[in-house]
């Protein structure tokens, strides 16, 4: 059993907020800048009994869409959740190897700082049961932003970016859960980009949506690519072909 009184020392790295920092170029694709690199990564569940990820070597390129495809249970979502250390919340996890974010191993970073730079959109739309405004300002408020004007600007910009502003501008104080499924998912994306992250992780964001809402999300991803690096897990090969620049195939 782990010693519960032993806390892992986490450092806060100010370099992560510097977007002008020169990133190393990939050896295989010399044009691309590497933002995440995964080296000999192993991941286990159940105290090492279940070997979920085996020898992963992968590079994620800046401002590109990388799609993860593969059969069910092959560990796509597991790897995705390793990027923002959401897997740390699961009991009995164990990892070997390392993931570097802008050259820094993520395990040494402060989780709050890492998660504010690496946003995540989940499979099921999961807006908080509060107003649309509060949903979007949740992240910035947690970081201590209190200025009403800047918060208003963040809400306007994020809703505009996801193309939701025209649809919800009259009901900005209504509950986020009162929107339709596709709108909820776009609200979740808006909530995520309100933190102005570098990377957006998307865990099958369209699997709970109808084709039209899916199409809207795909268009949105193509648009967001200009500003953000996107990693998307998908079961749909056509979708991967439509939206991704690079594709990682996972084998069982």
């Amino acid at each position, binding site marked *: 059993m782990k010693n519960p009184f032993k806390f892992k020392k986490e450092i806060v790295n100010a370099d992560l907020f510097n977007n002008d920092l020169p990133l190393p170029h990939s050896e295989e694709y010399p044009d691309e800048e590497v933002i995440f690199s995964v080296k000999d990564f192993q991941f286990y569940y159940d105290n090492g009994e279940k070997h979920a990820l085996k020898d992963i070597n992968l590079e994620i390129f800046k401002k590109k869409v990388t799609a993860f495809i593969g059969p069910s249970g092959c560990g796509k979502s597991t790897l995705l959740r390793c990027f923002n250390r959401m897997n740390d919340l699961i009991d009995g996890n164990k990892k070997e190897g390392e993931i570097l974010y802008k050259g820094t191993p993520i395990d040494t970073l402060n989780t*709050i700082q890492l998660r504010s730079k690496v946003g995540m959109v*989940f499979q099921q739309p999961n807006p908080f049961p509060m107003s649309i405004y509060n949903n979007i300002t949740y*992240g910035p408020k947690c970081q201590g932003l209190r200025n009403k004007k800047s918060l208003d600007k963040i809400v306007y910009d994020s809703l505009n970016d996801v193309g939701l502003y025209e649809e919800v501008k009259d009901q900005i104080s209504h509950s986020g859960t009162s929107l339709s499924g596709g709108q909820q998912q776009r609200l979740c994306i808006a909530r995520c980009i309100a933190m102005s992250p570098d990377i957006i992780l998307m865990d099958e964001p369209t699997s709970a949506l109808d084709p039209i809402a899916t199409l809207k999300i795909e268009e949105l991803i193509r648009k967001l690519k200009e500003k953000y690096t996107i990693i998307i897990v998908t079961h749909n090969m056509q979708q991967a072909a439509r939206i991704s620049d690079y594709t990682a195939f996972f084998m069982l």
Partner: protein
Amino acid sequence: MEKKNKKINLSYLIERNIKNRKYKDGITNGSTFLFSLLCVVILFLVIGYVLFTGANYLTPGFITSNYSQSSVALRTPKDFVYNENDYDFSDLERFDDTYYSEKWGIGLQYGKDNNQNQVIYLVQMSENSPFHELVRRDDGTNFNIPSDMYLSYITVQTELGTYKTAFSEDGIENMISTLDEAVSIYDSNFLTLGGGISTSLITTCYLILFTLIFSLPLGIGGAIYLGYYAKDNRITRIIRSLVDMSSGIPSIIFGLVGATIFIPFVGSMTGTTGGNIFTGALTMTLILLPTIVKTVEESIKTIPKSMISASLALGASNTETIFKIVLPNSIDGILNAAILGIGRTIGESAALVFALGTFITAAPSFTSGNTTLAVHIWYILAGEYPAYEQACAISIIIFCVVVVLSLSTKLINYLFRRKRER
């Protein structure tokens, strides 16, 4: 062994069983119906008995008056001389249900004390009435008779110099005829309504307040630990089963703990001796904690994991997630826990007999023993002459509070479910 593929004729079996089953089902259904009917009948009998016995005794005077009676003895001054020509009682307004003494200028009316005995109230006094001159027998000071005191007996001196006494049990006519013979009032006894529950009622409210102040933060903290932080390992399982078990401990054992630990503890800090509201509240906190932890934990567990993940993925810390996501979404559980706690505090008697005290005081006190309504019932039934009627009247109050509380939990659950579905 080889499997034998024997064909089973199901339709034949069904046909054979159908009659059999009918009787079996009839007996089981009938007995379940009978038993549940019996339960309902018994419940209604109990409630009916309490309502029937106590309803007459549940008067405003019963709720607002003290348990102890205070009395005052009055007489006319020693140099008082009755002179018929001195008095003019024409200002006295006449009512049908009031009896008047023309000689003394007073109006008397029948009333009831908290034991439903007939008593006489002095309801009207003429401005010129000699009753304004009455002084206390003990120190000779003037005394204005308050309207909530009733007249229990009066002793007068007649013209012949003899004394004559009229009791309120003998009726107003007797008292008025006695007064008509009088030249001075030798002794008259006025009493406040005794046997009331006002102190116990106020103490119960204080006890609920302090119990919730002590128990809710502790219980919510425990629930957050068990429902949010705790990993699913052996230690957590042990803690959880201990919490479950402690909700089954008889409350009198907690009362023992309250008497042996909290009374000296509170006493060493505040200098009090014996039980008081704080020792009672601390003991009730012990009794309520398992319930509060369980209720709030269940409510925290119904919060979708995805919502907590979303909060953490947005860079919120655990503390921010708890205060912004977990607690606001488990507010129904917290309210339910508080209401359960209130109900339990009102109904608890065994533990509070030790931890709070059994002395029905004249006013609620933070430094000495008190009673809640339930302990009040215990007190008035434990004596030589059990006052079942008053006990039933208190029970009606407790019943009403409990019914209102359980209805409000239903309302809270309904409102929050509707809000969630929307």
